[in-house]
Structures are given as C-alpha cells and as structure tokens.
C-alpha cells in the first residue's frame, strides 16, 4: 500500500510524459488500447472510438431493457449530468479553466427546449429542438468564453460564479416569456412508432414515455462522448493541454492562447446546453430553482471525484450524484431514522465523500487508479 506522496514522488522520477499537476492525471490517459503493447482494438483512433461507441450502444440497450422503469429514470438523470459534466471535464481537465457557471449554461439549453416545445400546434421534431438548445448555449458560451479567456484561476471562477447566480434571474425578470419562479412546463415528447416497434422486438417491454426519455438521454450521451473522445485525442486536445501546462511554450510555438481558451469554453458550453435540454425533457420543467449554484457545484463535484479530464470519470461522478442520495436516504430509513433525518444524512455523506476524495485521491478516481497502475508498471 503506497501512500499518495510516494506515488507522486515516483511519478516525478520515472514518468516523464505526465503533466506537472497531479489533479489532471486522468486527462492524459490514452484512450483504451492506444498504449504500447498488443491490443485487440484497431490502431486508428476514429475506428477504435466507433467500435467502442457500438459496444456501448449495445450495452446501453441491454442495460435499459434489463432494468425497471425507475432505474430507467435514474439513468436518464445520469445522462443529463454526464453530458454537461463531460464538457466541463474537457474544459477544466484539458484546458485548465475552472467554471462555476455551467449550471447556468444548462439553464440556457433547458429554457430553449421548453420554449420550443411549449408553443401551441405541432411541436418541432426533437432533434431540431436539441440542436437549437446546443446552438443557443454555444452562443452564450462564446460570449462568456471571450471574457473568460482573459481571466485565470480564482478570477475566472468568480466571473462564472456570477453567471451561475445571475442568469436564472433573467427568467424572473422576463416573467411573461420565461414563466418566472414557476418556470415553463415542458411537454414530454411522445415516443415515435419506430421506437415502440424497436422495444417490442428487443425485449417486449412497454415503450413508456419514461423509457423513451431514458433512450433520448442515452443517445445524446453516447454521441456527446464519442465526439468529445475524438476531440480530446486530436490535435485540438493536444493544443488544449499545451495551453494548460505551458502557456509560454505554447505561445512561442505560435498558439493563440485566447482563441483556444474560447474554443474550449464553447465546446463545453455546447455540452452544457445539450445536458440542459435533456434535463428539461426528463424533469418536464425549466424553472430557476432547478438551476441554482448547487447544480454547477454538483457538476464540478462529479468531475473532481471521477477524475479531471476523464470521460469515464464523468460517468462515475455522475452516477455518484444520481445514486448516492437515494441510497443513503433509504439506508438511513432502514437503520431506523425517520424520513427527515434520513434526508439530511444524504448531503452529509456526500460532503464527506468529497472531502475524503480530495484528501486521499486528489487526482480523482480514474486518475488515482491510473497513477497506481503506472507506478506499479514503473517498478516492474
């Protein structure tokens, strides 16, 4: 059992390709099979990612059909957290920008969806609505990103914090269009006929709205992660890392720091927009009280616990967000607490988990596992 300091020390001596900061170890993990040694996966990155996407899609369908409607609804929750956190982990883990405002960018996506689905008459097709939400959030993200590119560390955190606190206030100010404190109800889209046929053929389950929403969330999640994984493994991802780790060197190499920072912010904002759109569909409401600072902090928690910069870490972190509170609450009730005490236990345990993670695994789950593995390999 090596202590964290030891691994950090061995890393410094024996691993040259790592980033200077320990926290982003997860961000520099090669995607599966790209490392040296034999692998069954193809060498070409795009092909490899496509194959993984295919496997994950099959896995998702199996998972959704093997679980009950409630688990389906939890997986839908997981998907909107993971989509938004995926963008954030790329921004923070790869480009080193801290954002506390991604909850507000999710609100932009959610409200766009609510507005487009809320009108009378035939609603727009779902892909169009989702795309419009992404575009709107991207535009807002570009605005914020231009400002963010000039700021560093705590200043950036402060500026985006203001965004998280202030933006939901717009919904209250423009009460007529945005519904004020009550929010805008979202008409849940009905499952199309092909979907019912598909579910009937695969498992014979009934294609409920809950199930359809879970599939919509899962499809968006898979697509987002596929695109992000490609981006991270491309020249763009490498440039982001360069900007994160060695500003001066990057600038000497002719990289326009501001431009690349804005780009990172825009990509993550697009993900937040899609996450918000899926959230609006799943929750069936876009209201300011759903996009408080707590949401932005929850996203940050998910990426930190999972491991900065790692998409797998995002999945783990989001799963923690979704599954931990009900689990703890039910555990509390089973231990004989009343419903109120059990409910208060959940945030406590959540906080404790975060503190423990920061103390014992500052690189997050994925980063820590990878560190251990590298250290073990280096000793062999």
């Amino acid at each position, binding site marked *: 059992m090596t202590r964290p300091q030891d691994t950090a020390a061995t890393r410094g001596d024996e691993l040259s390709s790592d980033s200077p900061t320990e926290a982003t170890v997860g961000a520099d993990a090669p995607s599966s099979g790209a490392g040296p040694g034999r692998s069954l996966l193809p060498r070409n990155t795009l092909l490899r990612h496509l194959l993984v996407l295919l496997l994950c899609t099959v896995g998702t369908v199996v998972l959704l059909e093997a679980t*009950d*409607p*409630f688990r389906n*609804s*939890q997986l839908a*929750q997981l998907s909107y957290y993971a989509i938004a956190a995926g963008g954030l982990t790329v921004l923070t883990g790869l480009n080193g920008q801290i954002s506390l405002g991604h909850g507000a960018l999710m609100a932009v996506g959610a409200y766009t969806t609510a507005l487009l689905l809320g009108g009378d008459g035939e609603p727009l097709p779902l892909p169009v609505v989702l795309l419009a939400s992404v575009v709107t959030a991207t535009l807002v993200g570009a605005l914020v990103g231009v400002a963010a590119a000039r700021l560093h560390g705590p200043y950036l955190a402060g500026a985006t914090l203001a965004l998280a606190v202030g933006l939901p*206030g717009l919904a*209250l100010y423009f*009460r007529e269009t945005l519904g*004020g*404190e*009550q*929010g805008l*109800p979202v*008409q*849940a889209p009905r499952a199309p006929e092909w979907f019912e046929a598909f579910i009937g053929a695969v498992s014979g389950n009934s294609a409920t*709205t*809950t199930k359809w929403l879970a599939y919509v969330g899962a499809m968006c999640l898979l697509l987002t992660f596929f695109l992000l994984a490609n981006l991270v493994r491309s020249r763009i991802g490498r440039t982001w890392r360069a900007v994160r780790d060695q500003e001066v060197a990057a600038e000497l190499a002719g990289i326009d720091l501001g431009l690349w920072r804005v780009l990172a912010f825009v990509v993550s904002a697009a993900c937040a927009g899609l996450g918000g759109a899926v*959230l609006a569909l*799943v*929750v*069936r*409401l876009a*209201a*300011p*009280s*759903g996009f*408080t600072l*707590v*949401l932005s902090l929850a996203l940050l928690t998910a990426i930190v616990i999972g491991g900065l910069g790692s998409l797998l870490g995002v999945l783990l972190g989001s799963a923690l967000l*979704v599954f931990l509170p*009900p689990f703890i*609450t*039910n555990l509390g*009730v*089973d231990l*004989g607490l*009343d*419903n*109120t005490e059990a*409910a*208060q236990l*959940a*945030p406590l345990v959540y906080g404790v988990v975060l503190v423990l993670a920061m103390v014992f695994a500052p690189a997050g789950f994925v980063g820590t596992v990878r560190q251990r593995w590298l250290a073990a390999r280096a000793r062999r």
Partner: protein
Amino acid sequence: MTRSSRRLTRLIATATAVSALAACGGSDGGGAGGGGGENEASDTGITADAIKIGAHYPLTGVAAPGYSEIPTGVDCYFDFVNAAGGVNGRQIDYVYRDDAYNPTNTSAVVNELVLQDEVFMLMGGLGTPTHSAVLDFLNGEGVPDLFVASGSLLWDNPEENPYTFGWQPDYEIEGKVIGQYIAENFPEARVGLFLQDDDFGEDGEAGVRQFIDDQIVAAERYVPGNTDVGPQLAALQAAGADFVVGFNVPSYTALSQLTALRLGYDPQWFYSNVGSDPALVGSLLANFSQGQVSDASLLDGALTTEYLAGVDTPDDPWVQLWQRVWDECESAEGELTNYRVYGMAQAYTTIQALQAAGQNPTRDGLVEAVEQAGAEFEGPALAPYRYSAERHAGVGGVKIARITGTSAEDLTPVLVTDNGDAAIEESDAEPTTPPESGIPDVQPVG
C-alpha cells in the same frame, strides 16, 4: 424497501391495541367497512392490509424551516389512525422524500415514489414550482395527486389534470376577501402591495384589485432568494402607502419587518396566511437580526387570514385533537406547531377520501369519491371544500384576524367565496367538531 423498525413497533402496537379492544368485546375499527366482504389488493400500492402513500417536501435546504415540520404532523396523524385499526383494516404506510425545493429533485423523488416504492397515491406535495414539475407525470401515470400544498390555481384543472386536487384556499380568493375587508374597514387607506414575484403574488394581487384597485398606490415585487428588500419597502414608503398587504413567505415577513424598522416605516401590515405564522416569523426575526429582535412582537397588530384553527387557540376542539395526536405520537419531537397542524388536517382529509373510496379503493375510484363526496367532507377547515366533477379547488373561504402576541383575535366571521367575480358571503355553517375517536367516518360513495 422502506422497512423500518418503527413500522414493526407500530404493527406490534396495533396488534396489542386490536387484541385489547377485542378482549373488551368492542372493536371500533376506524371507518365503516364498505359492503363487508374481503380486503383485496385492489390497485397499485394497496394490499389486503396496507395502503402506501407518498409525498415530497423540502426537508433540507432553504425552504426547510417550517415546511419540513408538515410531514411530521401527517405522519403522527396516520400513526394515530393506524393505532385505531387503520382504514378498513388497512394500515397507512407513509413515505415522504426530500426534494430540497428543487424541481429537478422533485422529479427524481416522485419517480422513485411512483415507480420504485409503488405508492397508491400522493398527498400534500409541497410547492408550486416543485409540484408543477411532476404534474404531467402523475396525471400521465394515473396516480391520484391529492391536496397539493400550495394555493396556486394550477391544481384546479380537472380537464388537463384529472388526478390532481388543491386543498388550501387559493391565493385569489384570499386576495378577494382581503380586498373587500380593506374597502369596508379602511376606505381611506393608501394601500401598498408587497408581492412575491410569482403566481402567489400575482393571484393575490388580482383578488385584492377586484375591490380596491383605486386605493392601491404601489405594488412592489421581490424575487425569492434576494434577501435585500430595502428598495421595495423604500418605494412603498415613498408612494405614501400607510397600509401594506404582503403576499409573501415567512422569511420575507421577517425581512420586511426588519427593513421597515430600519427605514422608520410603520404602516398597518396585512400578511396573507402563508407568511404570518408568528412562531416561525419570530424565530426568523431573531435569526436575521442576530438576536436584536427576540420575538414576533413586531408582528403585533398585523392582520392576517385564517382557514384552520391554529395552536394559538388551544381550546378549539380540533386543536385539542391535534394536541392529543401529537402527545400520543412516538416519533414526535418538539412542540405542536401550525405547520404540523396543517399536515394533520391534510392527513385527516386524506383519510376521509380513502373512506369515501370504499373498502377496496382504486386510483380512479378515489378521484371519483373526492369529486362526489368531497364537498360534504366535514373537517378542521373553517369553510367547505369546493370539490366536484368540474372543480378540484380546495377550501372556499377564510376569516380575518389580528395577530396579538403569539395568538390572534377574530375580526370577521368566516367569509366564503369562489374564483372570478363570485360574491363574498358570510358562512352560515355551524363550526365543526371532530368525532369522539378523532377519526372521520365517511360513508363510501356509490
């Protein structure tokens, strides 16, 4: 899932109680059995010996003070009914979950209640934005959604939401009664409105304006979450308002009092029912002023509305019943409060609805029972419910009272009205008293 040791003790207690009663030769099971016959698992969440009921409340977070006490009252009343044999021999299994007053969480916990816990019905779901997130889902799944804890008009829409019912007087009729009272008793007053910036303030304002549109000199709105109400109160002061009507939540009652104190502004205050619980406002005042204001004496002389007898009237037969329920309750901690009374009163109505739905209730049958018999339910509310096949609106009246210390004195009889331009009339109904057993006995409909 939620098998607690408490339930076990409850079962043991019930078994003892039932056997003791049987030994005495007189069993008084709660509620008349409808049509005899056997208890069956007639619908989701109903077995031969239990009914599962779910709810969502803010147990943590900003809205928890006060509101988190409501389910403890509900729980104690259900325990009380269970100890007497339950409803038609079925024990109430009450599960309430925390949504922290965040609609995203509400959606998640209601999914859990409906899909995982498989409750028969929801009752008392709290909050306008939170509950609107699950309205569509509950009505789509056909889950009875009784007695939403909010005075919004959203719940009274049987066309769109056939399974949802309101319970407390909606903000509009409350506003109408307030408006008429001011027009009759303070015809010279220059009225300022202090409103929460959502449908709570909006509906209340619409009701008030029906009567005193020409007396209103300013309407100021605050956004929940922003704790600085200085500008709003300064504007009311500047407009020369000498009578301020507040449609706001308790924390903003405290904030408006402290701010007015600082500004040297001393109008006649009138707080709507939601924002006027002296006990909670007092503790909030102490909290916000870091102890400089120690109790609710600031509220002395303020006017408010009531539709339930509260803990300030310990001689009221209903309050005596609630006190008895609270004293006998094992899980009870602390004092009986108005929030707990509210919860118990809703639980009482829920028991009435279950009794009306007959021996083997179904979800649709429960909705029909409330539509048919709901207007006849005699309970703690001062005015009758307005339930029918066309209306899912709750209590149809309030009375006006003046806060004195921690109690209140009545200024008007109970005034009954309805939405729109329905007239306001004095209620001619006799005050109700609870049955001896403390448990309603409603005959099944049909």
